[in-house]
């Protein structure tokens, strides 16, 4: 009997294979400058693709109180990368979808037809949809409740009251379990609500009021969108698109512009800085105009948040280029290509010099910002958790909500109650932009310290950073019923960091009050 030990010679012979198995996968990761599989030559050089603004939606009819829109979600092939056709899902076949312009006091009805294929062409899930108008205090049945789905071949009419103050909203898919894929495929668009107060301000408007919808993508070798969310941790693409175009360049006049920046990425947080080092002026947040503008040199922007900023190009010479840069945030994978977003090329003298100011008072009646902690009648604690590979809020997942027949809630505030919600993230490995539907809130503090200057306005998404507890103050006004609260890192939301609360007791049922119906072409709205 030999006490055969593994000999040095045998080990050496195995070591060639061993070294390959252990080293080569890491070598590939370290060498990767991006994550896309498409040839680098197919990616445009930054600031070579012209900037575009999404089209404005036209109502199919209007009456005394309401504007009616109809759009069909369709699969289309479009060019994101020049010369490369990519399959996308678009509202009305557009990515981003058409911008809806609304005025306070005038209702909007949108008929959304799900004209998507029965199966996603490559990921083979059924693209059922639920459209959420993010920032609107809509009735529960029109809020894009995740399980209130519209199957391919069905439609649903959504009613938007527009009784809130002016703000930048967006509509995007919220269908249970596939929100991330659907939004990533392109189901996202802006919705602008204006009011008399805002129209009376001397701030830039018209063509000087520009939507900026950011979204990062990754591409397969044959130019299709690639979906890789690292076991539902997040999707961090290496191609930055602005209004659907990669690293575009926008010619600007020497004057002030208002930019409504929406971070429509699934998981990527941004930190903006201008290449000139000049400050940006934040004038509005998720819930509309701030009380007073805030001058900042950096803006941290989590997913689904909106920041309206004013940049003054008058201080630059014609021919000068100002690059909107991304300094990156913790726990968002950055690549060389994600450090730049777009370029503004100062190209001409202003053709219109009016509405070219930022007054020191923007909003004397700042709704949520007028709340004080003494009005609060309850303090609720929410913890955003990862356990057993599932994301949850207080250990509650959407699956459990479904299993409860949609009855389970994590909070039940009375109508018009004011409450403090404390959201805690004990992890240093993730941040979670938490969205509370229905309400606008005021951020009281972050780990006991004041919020960032750009957050000093009404919000509906809060960036809950690593090892942070964020305290929020909100009033449960406008509606009663069940509404979602969830993380806006969409792979987190889908798996399964989403739960719900109920305002009052007798609200309409989000599932049964206005369910989707079979679509037949020509059906009159």
């Amino acid at each position, binding site marked *: 009997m030999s006490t055969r030990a*593994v000999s040095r010679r045998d080990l*050496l012979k195995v070591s*060639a294979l061993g070294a390959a*198995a252990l080293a080569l*996968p890491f070598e590939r990761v370290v*060498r990767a400058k991006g994550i896309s599989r498409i040839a680098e030559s197919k990616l445009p050089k930054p600031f070579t693709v012209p900037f575009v603004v999404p089209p404005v939606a036209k109502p199919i009819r209007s009456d005394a109180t309401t504007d009616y829109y109809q759009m069909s979600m369709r699969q289309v092939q479009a060019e994101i990368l020049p010369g490369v056709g990519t399959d996308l899902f678009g509202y009305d076949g557009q990515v981003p979808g058409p911008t809806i312009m609304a005025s306070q006091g005038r209702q909007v009805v949108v008929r959304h037809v799900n004209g998507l294929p029965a199966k996603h062409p490559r990921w083979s899930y059924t693209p059922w949809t639920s459209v959420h108008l993010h920032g609107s205090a809509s009735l529960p049945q029109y809020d894009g409740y995740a399980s209130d789905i519209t199957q391919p071949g069905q439609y649903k009419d959504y009613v938007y009251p527009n009784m809130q103050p002016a703000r930048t909203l967006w509509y995007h898919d919220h269908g249970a379990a596939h929100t991330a894929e659907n939004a990533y495929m392109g189901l996202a668009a802006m919705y602008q609500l204006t009011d008399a107060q805002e129209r009376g301000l001397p701030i830039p408007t018209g063509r000087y009021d520009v939507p900026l919808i950011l979204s990062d993508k990754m591409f397969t070798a044959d130019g299709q969108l690639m979906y890789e969310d690292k076991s539902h941790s997040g999707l961090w693409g290496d191609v930055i698109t602005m209004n659907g175009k990669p690293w575009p360049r926008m010619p600007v006049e020497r004057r002030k512009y208002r930019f409504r920046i929406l971070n429509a990425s699934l998981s990527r947080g941004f930190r903006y800085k201008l290449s000139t080092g000049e400050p940006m002026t934040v004038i509005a947040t998720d819930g509309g105009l701030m009380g007073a503008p805030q001058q900042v040199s950096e803006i941290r922007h989590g997913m689904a948040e909106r920041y309206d900023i004013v940049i003054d190009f008058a201080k630059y010479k014609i021919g000068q280029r100002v690059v909107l840069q991304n300094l990156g945030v913790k726990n968002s994978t950055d690549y060389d290509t994600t450090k730049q977003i777009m370029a503004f090329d100062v190209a001409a003298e202003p053709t219109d010099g009016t509405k070219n100011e930022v007054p020191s008072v923007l909003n004397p009646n700042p709704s949520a910002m007028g709340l004080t902690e003494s009005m609060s009648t309850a303090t609720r604690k929410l913890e955003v958790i990862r356990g057993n590979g599932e994301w949850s809020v207080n250990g509650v997942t959407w699956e459990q909500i479904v299993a409860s027949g949609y009855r389970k809630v994590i909070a039940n505030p009375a109508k018009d109650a004011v409450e403090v919600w404390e959201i805690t993230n004990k992890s240093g490995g993730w941040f979670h932009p938490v969205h509370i539907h229905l309400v606008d809130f005021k951020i009281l503090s972050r780990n006991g310290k004041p919020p960032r200057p750009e957050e000093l306005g009404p919000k509906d998404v809060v960036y809950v950073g690593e090892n942070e507890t964020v305290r929020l103050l909100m009033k449960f006004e406008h509606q009663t019923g069940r509404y979602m609260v969830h993380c806006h890192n969409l792979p987190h939301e889908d798996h399964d960091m989403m739960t719900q609360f109920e305002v009052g007791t007798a609200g309409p049922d989000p599932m049964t009050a206005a369910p989707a119906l079979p679509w037949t072409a020509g059906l009159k709205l």
Partner: protein
Amino acid sequence: MTDRTTAARAVVDPHPAHPGDVDEDGSSALRSPVPTVTAGLVAAGAVTVAGVLHLLAALEHVQHQMTFAVFFIVVGLVQTGAGAGLRRGSTPLRVGLGLAALVGLVVLYVYSRTIGLQIGPHADRPEDPDFLGITVVVCELATIAAMITLLPDRLRSVAGNAVLVVGIGVWVLWATGVVG
């Protein structure tokens, strides 16, 4: 140590290195410079761990990718079975087949992490190296080294050289840009 016993004999004796045991050349095991465990036990242990980890990986995949789950279950069962078999003893033929299969699995791992499998949830890109995968591969490499040792001399050298050639082959493919 001229009489190299067969692999079967090598693993039959469960207590080969007891103090005072006398080795075939008459020297005391105590005088052996390095304390050793028999290669058979190393191979059996390592392949069992690899098998169990494959079964765990199957659980992870069962929800979203049935093909992978089934593959991992089959590999896991074969590996845990082989572990039990190795503890009872084996033949050069079985060891040789096992070696070929394990080398194949390691190559498949490298392929999935560098070029990328064209099926499954990662169809359009190579997977990133992960802790579970690395642990499995380390176990499999240990099994390969130990199983080579189990073979009779001539075969042992042939098998070792074959594994070496595969290893060098992978590096050549990498250097020429085929892999990675």
